[in-house]
């Protein structure tokens, strides 16, 4: 409760302060600047979705701003739409265009995506410039305010409208990020593959997130248009984009407060630059701050010297410029660049990230208490296996160029069984598992899960059909807490409809989901570490966390890829016990394992691969005595009876 009051109190206080400011401000110029603050706030919150939460470089936001501005303005001028309707239409256009751009562009990561967004904003600028009949081209477009709900808005009322929009966007965004979408965003930055394997779908979340950010950009564009009542395509350029990036990064990525702080900087910066004394003082202060921080970092040797020295050099250049340059406005871009450089290198979390860390140290606000764990019966309901095979693999092949990693394998897994998959290194086990779980499409052949269509296309489809897996090389969401790792994949029907989450009514469902997730953590013995970051767990605990996360899917088939690798002996015993319990809950297990004793103890049937082909299949005792298996493992004709050997 204290935490709730503290956080919400800060938000309400900031809102009240901002709302009261126009009463103290009398010049139209100052009110104009003040109105820009919520507009840029909305714009930067939108940009932060892709740059911060999705971890993408997005150079297209300025294009969405421009398109939104022109859409709203043209609807108001040509069709006589009201203010609110024009704004809604502008954000709708941004949403649609954002989807249209993201669907192709997000198929690639990194530089190509950034290039696609850069191209988009260049295309948008060209279109606004050249479609003269519609936009007036380079001459620009002038118009007057449309009415809002039938009434003309005076400038102060328009400010309050903008502030109301910001408050709405802020609240919706905060609720969204506190719920499942927020977790999904965090998860897909850490491991897109595991996000897909948990049935969450990194691609669709990225597209949705990008489209949402674009819609906010266009909404801000609409407000921008009605604020200035004059539009020119030349405004929406590369340079403006650099300023927006500056805002997000300087304010602090992945933070609503950061977006607001960034908006303040973006609004004030041009004015600060033109007043020489203010600029000099700020540059000097920046130099001093970076000197203090840099020297401290150098003495503690926490970072390599470059990162301590680079911000000092950048701010020193800035200070020198403030003293020497004839007109600081001419160097505007260089100033932005130097500030950005110093912040990105020296203060990667931005102003708000820094503030949050130092404030967090002083004001210890306890996190809300966790609910009591649910029972395992509730978190992992009993499944009744039906007779027959749950998974059938037929003549499956997967070739990589000339390498035949899986070369015509046919086998079936009985429902409710623990099925072992063994074979020497390079025998095709991992490739087989990757094809079955949907990561690779098969070159030929069929994989059929009971109740689903053959050859499920991709990890997400396979996960949703009931396959859950762990990874040999751990794929945890390192930045998320242990509890959230399990909650990402949780498939227990407590997922709230998106509208409820946005409206802030997702809490009860969230609590029940937490209880279920805690039950699974208790099952693997990690309930005490629920709040720790997954990255900080020892590697054995991380393996158990992957197991709990996979169970959260309530799968019909659980694939364990070398779960005992690197575990200490007592942990291996615990793992065996857990797999037994999982089996008793009616879940079919496919176990890939090198520890022969684990396989012998647990498995009902074992399939042996060698060179991408099926070598033997049968009960573990029989397979262990099979001369072909012994030859594959030991390289010599086997001596029957050598059952002790652990290949």
């Amino acid at each position, binding site marked *: 409760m204290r935490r709730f009051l503290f956080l919400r109190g800060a938000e309400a206080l900031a809102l009240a302060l901002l709302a009261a400011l126009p009463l103290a401000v009398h010049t139209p110029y100052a009110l104009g600047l003040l109105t820009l603050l919520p507009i840029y706030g909305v714009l930067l919150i939108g940009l932060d979705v892709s*740059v911060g939460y999705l971890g993408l470089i997005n150079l297209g936001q300025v294009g969405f701003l421009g398109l939104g501005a022109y859409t709203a303005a043209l609807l108001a001028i040509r069709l006589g739409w009201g203010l609110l309707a024009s704004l809604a239409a502008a954000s709708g256009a941004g949403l649609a265009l954002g989807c249209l751009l993201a669907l192709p562009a997000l198929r690639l990561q990194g530089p190509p995506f950034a290039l696609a967004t850069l191209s*988009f904003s260049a*295309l948008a600028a060209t279109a606004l410039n050249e479609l003269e009949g519609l936009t007036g081209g380079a001459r620009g477009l002038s118009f007057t305010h449309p009415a809002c709900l039938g009434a003309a808005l005076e400038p102060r009322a328009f400010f309050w409208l903008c502030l109301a929009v910001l408050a709405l966007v802020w609240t919706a965004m905060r609720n969204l990020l506190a719920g499942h979408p927020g977790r999904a965003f965090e998860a897909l930055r850490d491991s897109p593959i595991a996000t897909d394997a948990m049935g969450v779908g990194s691609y669709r979340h990225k597209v949705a997130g990008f489209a949402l950010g674009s819609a906010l950009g266009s909404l801000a564009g609409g407000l921008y248009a009605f604020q200035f009542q004059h539009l020119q395509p030349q405004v929406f350029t590369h340079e403006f984009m650099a300023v927006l990036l500056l805002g997000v990064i300087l304010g602090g990525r992945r933070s609503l407060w950061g977006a607001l702080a960034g908006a303040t900087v973006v609004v004030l910066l041009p004015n600060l630059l033109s007043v020489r004394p203010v600029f000099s003082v700020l540059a000097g202060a920046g130099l001093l701050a970076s000197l203090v921080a840099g020297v401290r970092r150098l003495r503690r040797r926490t970072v390599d010297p470059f990162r301590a020295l680079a911000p000092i050099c950048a701010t020193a250049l800035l200070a020198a410029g403030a003293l020497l340059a004839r007109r600081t406005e001419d160097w505007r871009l260089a100033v932005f660049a130097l500030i950005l450089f110093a912040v990105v290198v020296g203060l990667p979390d931005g102003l708000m990230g820094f503030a949050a860390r130092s404030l967090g140290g002083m004001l210890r606000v306890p996190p809300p208490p966790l609910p009591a764990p649910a029972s395992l019966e509730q978190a992992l309901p009993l499944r009744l296996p039906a007779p027959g095979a749950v998974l059938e693999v037929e003549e499956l092949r997967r070739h990589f160029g000339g390498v035949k990693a899986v070369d015509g394998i046919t086998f079936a897994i009985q429902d409710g069984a623990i099925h072992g998959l063994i074979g020497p290194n390079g025998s095709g086990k991992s490739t087989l598992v990757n094809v079955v779980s949907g990561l690779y499409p098969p070159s030929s052949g069929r994989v059929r899960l009971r109740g689903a269509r053959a050859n499920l296309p991709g990890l997400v489809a396979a996960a949703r059909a009931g396959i859950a897996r762990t990874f040999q090389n751990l794929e945890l969401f390192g930045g998320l807490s242990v509890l959230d790792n399990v909650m990402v994949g949780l498939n227990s029907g407590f997922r709230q409809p998106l509208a409820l989450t946005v409206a802030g009514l997702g809490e009860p469902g969230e609590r029940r989901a937490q209880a279920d997730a805690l039950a699974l953590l208790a099952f693997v013995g990690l309930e005490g570490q629920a709040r720790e970051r997954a990255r900080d767990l020892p590697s054995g605990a991380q393996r158990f966390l992957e197991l709990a996360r996979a169970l959260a899917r309530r799968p019909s088939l659980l694939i364990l890829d070398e779960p005992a690798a690197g575990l200490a002996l007592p942990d291996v015993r615990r793992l065996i016990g857990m797999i037994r319990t999982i089996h008793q809950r009616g879940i079919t297990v496919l176990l890939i394992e090198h520890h022969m004793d684990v396989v012998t103890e647990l498995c009902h049937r074992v399939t042996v691969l060698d060179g991408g082909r099926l070598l033997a299949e049968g009960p573990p005792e029989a397979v262990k005595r099979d001369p072909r298996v012994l030859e594959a493992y030991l390289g010599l004709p086997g001596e029957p009876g050598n059952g002790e050997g652990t290949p």
Partner: protein
Amino acid sequence: MDILSFGQLVVSGAFMGLVYALIAYGFQLTYATSRTTNFGQGELVTASALVALSITHLGLPYGLMLPCGLGFGALAGLAMERTAVRIALQEKSEGWIMLTIIVGLFIHSTCENIWGQADRPFPTPIPSEAFQVLGIAITPLELSVALGALGVMGLIELFKRRTLLGKAVQAVAADPEAAGLMGISARRAVMLSYALSGMVAALAGILVAPITTVGPPMASGLVLKAFSVAVVAGLDSGFGAILVGMFLGGLENLTSFLVGSGWRETPGLALLILTLAVRPNGLFGRAAIRKV
């Protein structure tokens, strides 16, 4: 439009397209070793051309100016690597590559303040009187662009394939960690690729400047098209870059003639987004396999 003027537009566009291909090749060089793209490449092109221009004004002959300009480009590439790229590689996180945009902005602003915003002519000893081939006018200047671009790309490819150092660079491109275990420093290979890439950018600037004139605004237009070429061709195909570059150059000239000069940039940008939709790894690129 008759067939001859159609041919004329396509041919002179294709010569221009070789410049895009050359800059795109610069992207590919660094992408191969480090999976990073220098978003400030356009600024390197302009800055090198402007430095070369100032050297010419000092009275040095073309033959001396060229190595000086290329040397400046290589140094600028190295500086870019040190200030912007190395942190991105250390952090193994893509967001940091934004630093190259930032350094590019700084270079852009500095150029604006030193050389002014206006475009300037670039003197060259190569004559610009056209001669006719099958009724299509070609200038020696255009030929010099083609020779220079293809020549330097060929030389770098030879270096990569025939020398030990070049093979070391390719080893890093294939697998930096394995190369490291074999005693090849991935960091040096990345530095080398950035120096080469900066040199290629400088050459592109010096070759194209006599045709287009040179000034700070030149960067963004050129670099966007070069980006398009690199992505459409695939970030690992130098040969593809040449083909796509020439195609795009021709297409651009046609668009500008048929639709209007303001739309000149659009085919490249549209082509880029279209390629991402249909063949995300580029027309000549190879798909990478996700491993777990």
